[in-house]
Structures are given as structure tokens and as C-alpha cells.
């Protein structure tokens, strides 16, 4: 693990009973990188994200986050420095949670136990909602949002955490072209503004922002390729990556 690495995986294996989701994965993601993780459905992309923030359990290897080797003891603390936008957060339209409250969830970890969220936390949440263009949704029940609005609220929640690493799992799936463009611009703006390391999973190559400087290709639970953005122009490489995809 180098001090310039935001994420450093060494021989990481993840399995769910007989199904191996990731096999012997080693890679580094530098601090400040905008990294796109691409590959067909079921390749192991989401699993890769969940071992970076400790939601998934590894069966072998080591995970290094922001210069520290992640363990059960320190992952709770490390997670506070990692923002996470999950693939889809299904919320009951009748759920008693407003968008502002959903965003404020992002402050809970940093605030710590036994401390109430204060005016400063609310100000930060409103500022991030302004930034993501969701300030007008503050009082709306979070289950009553369009797909694009829901992703922006999830992004706002991740950003209000003041993370150093931002993980995005298929943030643009099932969105219309306008919403894809808007969300992409917001992510790039946040990456620049907060000097983030971004790891974005997608299977739609054209949804990956142009600033993405690092590409990781995942196929059949293995890292098939890591390199710079020029790989996205390598037709042979891409054809191999998606060869067996439906």
C-alpha cells in the first residue's frame, strides 16, 4: 500500500457460499483519481465497491483505505470518510422521512453516538442540497421522488458526509438522458470542488464522465484490465470484456 493510494486491494477474494464474486483481486486507486469500474452484469463490480466500504466481507487478502489496513475494528471509523451512493434505494412512498432527514443521515456517522445533530449539520445539509439542486425537495417525503431526484438526494447524503472517497454504484441506470447528464455534471463538480477520489461503477460506458482518468475492467470475478482512459477506445479490449454478455 502506498501513501498516495486511496484504495489498495491485495489478493482479495470474496465468495457467497460456492459462488466466487471476486477472485484474487489486487489493485490501487490513487488519491484524487476519478475511476470508472466497468464490466458486464454480474461481473463483480458492485462487490468491488462494497469491499471498499466494508459492507461486503472478504474471505482472503487485505483492503487498504486511505493509508490504513481495514479491519473489523477500524472499518466503522473509515466508513465515515467514504460516501456511498447505492444502486437503488427503494423507499416506501408513505415512509415518514423527508428528503432533508434522508440527507442528514449522512451526518450521523461523523457526529458520533450520543450527539444530536445541530444547526451546523442542518446548514451543511441545506448547502449540499443547494449544490445538488435539491433544496426545493427538503420537506418532500423521500419515497415520493423521481429516479433522478432520488439519485441526487442519495448523492447529497453522501456529500454531506464530507467524504474523501465517493463510491457510486450505477448512479445513472434507468435515468433519462437529461438526468444522466445532470447527475454526471454534479458528480464531476463535487469531485473537483471537494478534491474527492471517485469510484464509479457503470456498465454503460457513455455514462462515464470525460474526466474519468482511470479505468478498471471487471469480468468473471476478476480484474481483466486496469489502465487509463484510452482503454475505452480499444475496441478489441471492450469486445473481449463484453463478449459473453447478453
Amino acid at each position, binding site marked *: 500500500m502506498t501513501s498516495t493510494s486511496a484504495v489498495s486491494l491485495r489478493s482479495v477474494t470474496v465468495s*457467497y*457460499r460456492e459462488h466466487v464474486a471476486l477472485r484474487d483481486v489486487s489493485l490501487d486507486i490513487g488519491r484524487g483519481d476519478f475511476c470508472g469500474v466497468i464490466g458486464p452484469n454480474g461481473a463483480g463490480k458492485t462487490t468491488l465497491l462494497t469491499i471498499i*466500504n466494508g*459492507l461486503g466481507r472478504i474471505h482472503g487478502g487485505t483492503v487498504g483505505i486511505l493509508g490504513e489496513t481495514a479491519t473489523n475494528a477500524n472499518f*466503522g*471509523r473509515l*466508513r*465515515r470518510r*467514504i460516501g*456511498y451512493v*447505492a444502486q437503488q*434505494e*427503494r*423507499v416506501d*412512498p*408513505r*415512509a*415518514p*422521512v*423527508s428528503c432533508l*432527514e*434522508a440527507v*442528514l*443521515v*449522512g451526518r*450521523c*456517522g*461523523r*457526529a458520533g*453516538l*450520543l450527539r*444530536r*445533530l445541530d444547526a451546523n449539520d442542518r446548514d451543511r445539509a441545506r448547502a449540499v442540497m443547494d449544490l445538488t439542486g435539491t433544496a426545493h425537495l427538503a420537506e418532500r*417525503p*423521500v*419515497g*415520493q*421522488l*423521481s*429516479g433522478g*431526484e*432520488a439519485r441526487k438526494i442519495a448523492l447529497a*447524503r453522501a456529500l454531506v*458526509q464530507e467524504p474523501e472517497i465517493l463510491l457510486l454504484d450505477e448512479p445513472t441506470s434507468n435515468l433519462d438522458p437529461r438526468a444522466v447528464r445532470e447527475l454526471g455534471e454534479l458528480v464531476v463538480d463535487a469531485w473537483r470542488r471537494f478534491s474527492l477520489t471517485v469510484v464509479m461503477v457503470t456498465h454503460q460506458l457513455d455514462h462515464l464522465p470525460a474526466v474519468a482518468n482511470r479505468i478498471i475492467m471487471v469480468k468473471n470475478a476478476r480484474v481483466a484490465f486496469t489502465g487509463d482512459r484510452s482503454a475505452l477506445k480499444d475496441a478489441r479490449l471492450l469486445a473481449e470484456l463484453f463478449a459473453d454478455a447478453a
Partner: protein
Amino acid sequence: MPPELAVLAKPLAAAILGGLVCGVVGVWVVLANIPFVGVAMSHAAFAGAVTGLLLGINPLLTAAVFCLAASLLIGPMAERADIEPNVSLGIIFSVVLGFAFLAIGLMRGPRAEALNLIWGSILLVSAQDLALMAAATGAVLLFLGLFYKEIQAVLYNREIALAVGIPERALFFTMLVLCGLAVTANLSTIGGLLIFSLIVNPPSAAYQLTYRLKTMYLLSALFGVLSCLVGLFVSWLTDAPAGAVIIITSSAVFGLALLISPKRRAGKGLGTRG
């Protein structure tokens, strides 16, 4: 105070405490979408209590042990990817029910005390029962007050709560244990086979009426207390089993809430927008 009203002092306190604590833990059960947990817990408490009666041990103690064991089994079993949560709950439910009927079957002599645990007897609540109910209510409210924001995050989305750095497993399991404690504390007043309704009905009614979590807690506690008070007075006036009247009242409150629910009226317009 007239003597006939003085005898109602302890039952009144029990009705208020029972309705309050069930209303609060019920919000956790409904929002975490684990209503069957309430069913399994209440039957575990019932099984524990009748086992205690059979063995000559304080039934509330054995009810608490069974409930605690059930809550500590439910959490980890529900998280196992290879067992459906409802399947694991169903297994626990059938095991505790088996224990309950085995204990009842092995009892010699009259089984009135065991059968009382089915219906509950709020009018005969003892000082010891009341102390346990007060302790359970205090523990639940203290936990809620201390960890309100974390509980809200866990109820919103357990995975996201974990991802932002909240110790969600510890909190979720503590919530289950406190549910078990609330069930145990109300066993002798509401009854082991009926209490899950008091845990599910008031918060489900509150859920129909508000988009605010704090309001949901308040309404749920209010509906719980109201159901218990109505049950108590109807039972006092007519000799009907209080537990059954409490459950029928709480079900009626839910039905009424459903009828007047602004969410239901807006129903067709609700839903995640494309």
C-alpha cells in the same frame, strides 16, 4: 377517591405504560418491516412464562429469558443469506409455540394461571408487574432519546446506516432485545398471544396519518394508550377479557386511520415517480 375507582389505579398505570411502550417499539417493528418479529417475540415470551410456571420459576423471568434468546436468534438468522428471514422467523415461531403447548400439556392440576397468560388480566396487575412495565418503558424511552438519530437512520435504510459509519447491527439487535423486554413486561396484562397486535396496530394506524417520524411515535403511543384504556374500561364494566378488547380497539383504530388516511386518499397519485 371512591374505593371502586382506587382499585383502578394500578390497571390505569399499566394501561398507560403498556400502550406507550408497545406504541414506541411498534414503530421500530413496522418501519423495519418485521411485523412477524413481534409475533415470534410474543409467543416466545408466552412459552417462557408457561415453562416457568411448569418449573416453579418466576414466569416473568423465564419469559424474559425466552424473549431474549428469541431476539438474539432472530437477528443473526435474519441476516443469513441462505435462510429467508420469514423462514427463520417461522422456525422460531413454531419452536416456541411447541415449547408453550408442551409446558401446558405437562402441567398438573388447573391451568388457569397459564391460560391467563394467553388473555392477560390487566385488572389484576400486581405491583411487581407494574414495576417491570415501568422499567421496560423507561429503558425503551431512554434508548430512543439517546440514539434517536441513529435509530432513524437504521429504520430508513440499514445498509446506508452502516455505510455512513453507524454501528447499525448493535443498534438493530438492541432494538430487538428491547422489543422482547416490552413484550415480556406486558405479558400478564395483555396476554402472550395478543400482544403482537398491540405492537403492530397502533404504529400501522399512525403510519397512515403522517409523514413525520416524531409525529408517528406520538400518534402510535397515543393509539396504544387509548386502546389499552378502552380495553380496561370495557373489561371493568362488562367482565370481557381486557386483552381481547384492547386488540379489537387497536384494530378499529387502524381501520379508522386507514379510512381517513390522507396517504390512502392520495393513494393513486403516490408512488415513486418515473
